[in-house]
């Protein structure tokens, strides 16, 4: 058997490698966004890419989120495969007209004539003391919009592996990269892996409770599962990977087994994706649930700057573990 060579790299490198690989494989692919070139990417993700691919394929844009996102739509419709980078999801509000009023609905309005094979990458999430205008988690909010696909890679493997299928997807795909994960390190097969962009993955097996989560929440949930394991509670951790369309099957299968579910989402609770997950699970498995589905979410505040306040506003492993321990009928 051929030895499976593993390579250690950061999430940041994984995104970069994914982009490089795509640009090498397919000359329709190009990267466009603010400071992706000369600066090397505001989170240093595209460092070196300008030098490697030149300014015609790594395009620094002026500060015009609506303009260049819309230009990405047009370029995609004109036969290219653009990767548009919006620095953070907070600034994507300036482009939401293009994302929602254009990208998401061209196919439908044109009766199937014009698809928009566009990938938009954005950083998301809090925890870096960047305050209210730089720390939102709006991926679940975008997942409300029909016509969009929403990916949330949480591992190095997914960060690398999801981009290519996203580019191959005929429809607009949003990829949310949690800023806190950029420095996170992991291993992956030498050439990256083939991953799909349609299924959730069980990242830890357990019989007692299902933690349904994604993105940064995965790592916090795995930590929580570790805490719980010490007390004899075995949590299964489901990484959604894709927020639209949700992979009901994997979710339901897990909860059918554990009869208990907790949703962990750094986004705000009210009207967040956590509510959708809770509702779906309850609608489907009401009579199998041992107790109501719980949600551990970000506090409903604009992100505060001060560290102690911000940390208090985010779901923490201890809080997740605590919530689970309080659930009805759990041994441990």
């Amino acid at each position: 058997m051929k030895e499976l060579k593993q390579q250690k790299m950061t999430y940041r490198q994984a995104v970069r490698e994914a982009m490089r690989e795509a640009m090498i494989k397919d000359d329709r692919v190009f990267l466009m966004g603010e400071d992706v070139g000369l600066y090397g990417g505001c989170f240093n993700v595209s460092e070196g890419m300008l030098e490697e691919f030149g300014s015609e394929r790594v395009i620094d844009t002026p500060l015009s989120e609506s303009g260049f996102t819309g230009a990405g739509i047009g370029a995609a419709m004109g036969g290219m495969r653009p990767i548009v980078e919006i620095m953070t999801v907070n600034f994507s509000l300036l482009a939401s007209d293009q994302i929602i009023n254009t990208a998401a609905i061209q196919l439908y309005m044109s009766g199937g004539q014009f698809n928009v094979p566009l990938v938009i990458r954005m950083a998301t999430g809090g925890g870096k003391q960047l305050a209210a205008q730089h720390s939102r988690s709006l991926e679940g909010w975008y997942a409300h919009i029909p016509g969009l696909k929403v990916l949330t890679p949480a591992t190095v493997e997914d960060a690398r592996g999801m981009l290519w299928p996203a580019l191959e997807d005929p429809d607009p795909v949003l990829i949310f990269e949690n800023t806190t994960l950029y420095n996170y390190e992991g291993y992956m097969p030498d050439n990256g892996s083939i991953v799909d962009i349609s299924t959730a993955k069980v990242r830890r097996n357990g019989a007692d409770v299902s933690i349904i989560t994604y993105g940064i929440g995965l790592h916090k949930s795995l930590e929580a599962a570790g805490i719980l394991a010490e007390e004899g509670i075995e949590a299964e951790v489901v990484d959604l990977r894709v927020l639209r369309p949700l992979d009901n099957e994997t979710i339901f299968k897990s909860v059918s087994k554990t009869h208990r579910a907790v949703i962990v989402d750094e986004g705000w609770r009210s009207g967040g994706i956590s509510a959708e997950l809770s509702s779906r699970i309850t609608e489907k498995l009401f009579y199998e649930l041992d107790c109501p589905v719980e949600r551990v979410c970000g506090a409903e505040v604009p992100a505060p700057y001060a560290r102690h306040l911000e940390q208090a506003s985010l779901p923490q492993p201890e809080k997740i573990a605590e919530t689970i321990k309080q659930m009805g009928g759990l041994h441990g």
Partner: protein
Amino acid sequence: MGNYRMGTPKKTASKKTTEKKAVSAKPGKSEKIHLLTQMIRIRQMEEKTYEMYTKEKIRGFLHLYDGEEAVAVGIIENLDKEDGIVSTYREHGHALIAGMSMNSIMAELYGKAEGCSGGRGGSMHLYDKKTNFFGGSAIVANGLPMAVGLAMAYKMQNRNSISCCFFGDGAVDEGEFHESMNLASLWNLPVLFVCENNFYSMGMPFELAQAETDLVKKANAYKIEGAAVDGMDVMAVYDASVKAINYIREQKKPWFLECQTYRFRAHSMFDPERYREKDEVKEWKKRDPITTFTSRLQEEGLLDEDELNEIKKRVAEEVEESVEFSEKGTDEPIENLTRFVYSDEPKTLNKSK
């Protein structure tokens, strides 16, 4: 206005028309008659859609193009088939001249499966892949970035195509205009920005919406060259667009063309038209692009009464046919409601090159 050095566009054949009539930069009799015919086609189609709206065959918003025909015809006739067109909710005329069949337009307005978008889009969202007609958008100004992106694609693919973007005077106020103009200029993209200035955005008079009403000056502030033209005069628009298109293809830069025109009808079918005087409309109607051009052709001895009647008759037949076609149209099955939210195409993971 309208006094431009004539040039020869890269491709003079009007590949955009259904009839594929050749039109040269110095159009002769038959080309001029073709231009007139095209304007009449729009007008008669619009009049019919108006009628059908009052009969409740067509619903939703309906924005008519009566009075502005010279713009669509004068410009699109000079475009190449491969050029992309991006338009607004007032796009029936553009769609027709781009080469869409009146049948598929009318059927779409009827909401029928035989319409270009299978009844999903309606009046404001005509699309046609065959003729590179990238749709009517009903969000003011939001087609401009798309046109910029199409031009990027053309440039990246070393095609000599241009993208042509129609928008109203109201769109100029929006931030997306600003961003798009800057990008197109900065990156030397082949975009023809066509502002159809009909002096109102819904009920808002142009001069109450714009601090600077000289739009070419505005374009210049992005280092984009341009011109203003009498949008009621099809030959003036035609000449201006020849110049514009040549400039774009040769200089590899965008161009801004303001066409000063007027809509004869209300903004949409719901508009009580409180904001303008009947007399103003009457004044502008004296400059009706169709009647004035007809007279000119007659004066020049290029068109006699019989020919004119023949044109009108042929067009009326085309319009009638489109109505019949639409009346006979079928409803998209309700089971197809969610079709085209996403592409049918399955995940293509294994098709990777």
